[in-house]
């Protein structure tokens, strides 16, 4: 079963929830994998501290023009909708950053002058954190497009009952790439106007992809009228709330120093219990089979 931890708004606690659920469920003997799909700013390894066994570069195929064969006919430039290949009177120039690797120029070239060569865009690392299978991607700095790395992560075979995919913030293409094919999404939010607004965007996204979702509210201060009003508005949204994690200095400190919070703060582990029960129930029901 593949569970994406997403949020819309950044910094709400996606990585905290993902790494701690992975830790707690692995401790109960389940086969768990954690996949860090926030390849622009990956943080899961800071908390899980995995031992990396394998590391490989991710490449994107970009065109290479063989100048002897090229007749400067310009069909490649015309075929490319991204302005990534331009035919000049003397030579044909490729702009790899703009290339979407669609293969259109190669198909368009009548002289067979275009082939493809891999160009590095980032790295994938695989290993173990205790019994947790760890997989993490990292985009090279200056590279604009993260989906090829997320695709590479998702194509890597895993053996697990439960796979947690830690999504990047936002609602655009890298998040879609992470969510595609998931069995469910856990949406982490915080009790602020920003948190609620961005949660609504995230809900619209998972609904568009037909992925069932539940909400975890992080940093809750229960007393006070503002929170009660906020919770009223949350209850009007079409998703169940699975947990409310309280704001606590102990949790914030454990997080800031990069530890697995559930290991050090028992109350935090307790708050995640209902989520764990629900996830285990879904596995038992066999609602979802892991198939990558």
């Amino acid at each position, binding site marked *: 079963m593949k569970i994406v931890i997403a949020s819309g708004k950044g910094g709400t606690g996606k990585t905290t929830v993902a790494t701690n659920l992975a830790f707690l469920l692995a401790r109960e003997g389940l086969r768990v994998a954690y996949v860090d799909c926030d390849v622009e*700013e990956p943080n899961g390894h800071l908390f899980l501290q995995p031992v990396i066994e394998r590391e490989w570069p991710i490449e994107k195929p970009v065109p290479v023009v063989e100048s002897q064969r090229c007749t400067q006919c310009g069909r490649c430039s015309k075929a490319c909708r991204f302005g990534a290949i331009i035919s000049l009177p003397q030579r044909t120039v490729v702009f790899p950053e703009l290339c979407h690797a*669609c293969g259109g120029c190669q198909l368009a070239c009548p002289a067979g002058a275009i082939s493809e060569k891999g160009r590095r865009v980032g790295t994938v690392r695989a290993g173990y954190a205790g019994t947790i299978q760890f997989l993490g991607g990292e985009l090279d700095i200056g590279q604009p497009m993260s989906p090829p790395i997320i695709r590479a992560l998702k194509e890597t075979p895993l053996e697990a009952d439960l796979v947690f995919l830690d999504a990047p*913030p936002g609602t655009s293409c890298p998040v879609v790439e992470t969510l595609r094919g998931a069995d469910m999404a856990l949406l982490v939010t915080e009790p602020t106007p*920003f948190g609620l607004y961005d949660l609504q965007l995230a809900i619209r996204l998972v609904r568009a992809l037909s992925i069932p979702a539940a909400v975890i509210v992080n940093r809750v201060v229960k007393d006070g009228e503002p929170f009660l009003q906020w919770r009223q508005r949350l209850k009007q949204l079409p998703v169940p709330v699975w947990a409310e994690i309280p704001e606590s200095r102990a949790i914030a400190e454990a997080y800031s120093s990069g530890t697995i919070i559930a290991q050090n703060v028992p109350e935090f582990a307790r708050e995640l219990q209902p989520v764990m029960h629900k996830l285990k129930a879904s596995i038992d029901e066999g609602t979802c089979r892991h198939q990558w």
Partner: protein
Amino acid sequence: MKELVVISGKGGTGKTSLTAALAVLSSPCVVTDCDVDAPDLHLVLQPQTIQQQPFVGGRKACIITSTCRKCGKCVELCRFGAIRHKKGDAECEEGGFLIDALACEGCGVCVDHCPERAIELRPYVNGQWYLSRFHGGYLFHATLDVGSENSGKLVTQLRRAAHEFATKRGVPLILTDGPPGIGCPVIASLTGASLALIVTEPTVAGLHDFERIARLCRQLGVPAVTVINKADINPETSDRIANSSIRYGTDVIGMIPFDSDIVRAQMAARSVVEVSDGPAARAMRAIHSTVMSRLEKALDVHSGEFITIDVTQIDNVKSKGVTT
């Protein structure tokens, strides 16, 4: 005209709260919310929309079912898995094909190679952008349809519109609230800016992500300064960030202490400097005056470097000499 871009790498470090405070203190100014995935600035600035325009982010393939012979060539050629074969689906006739708009990147390979010419690329509206007025100036902001791509292109469009508007009105300052991460919308938000203000927090994740965004600023040639938010929750890590920022030449110009007034202000839909004189508000006022004096020395915003196509980076800026 100067442009300050507030950026963070890691999400949720306080970019928008700080941008809102700077916007109120810098009045009159033009503000741009470039976090088009999850825009929140309007929740604080409470603007009145003056103008709204659709954003045409690109084109998507569309199958003309009456002409399609269902040969399957498009499925074979599409590298994005964007063509679904819909067997027995009510939405399309038996054995027909359908484009998955969320997966289609608009490359046109299927269009060019369909033997029946049964596929077209059609302009695709995937967002709206707005010009609004708030009590301290003007706000350019946008909403991207969920699941859309081309957020980098929308960012560029917003920044260009803000730049033209500010030039026309003679407004000397543009404040830009950037998106998290280091990918295409971030690169689109940073290129050509006068100064970047990196907001980070003293956690291991904050430090890690700070270093990546600082390296990106350097690679793009945008000078940067750093602000540590909630600096007192882990003074040791704050020190490590300060040391690291010396290495990257992005010196720490301010530290904001943890202060529950920040959330209280957000709940009241106001900027913290309007409703509080607590430690965070005071720190933000000090940051404002430091940033303004840094901006005086910084270069003017260079809109010629704003990216022109959906995604790019330095290679493209360099390439301009070749293409024109």
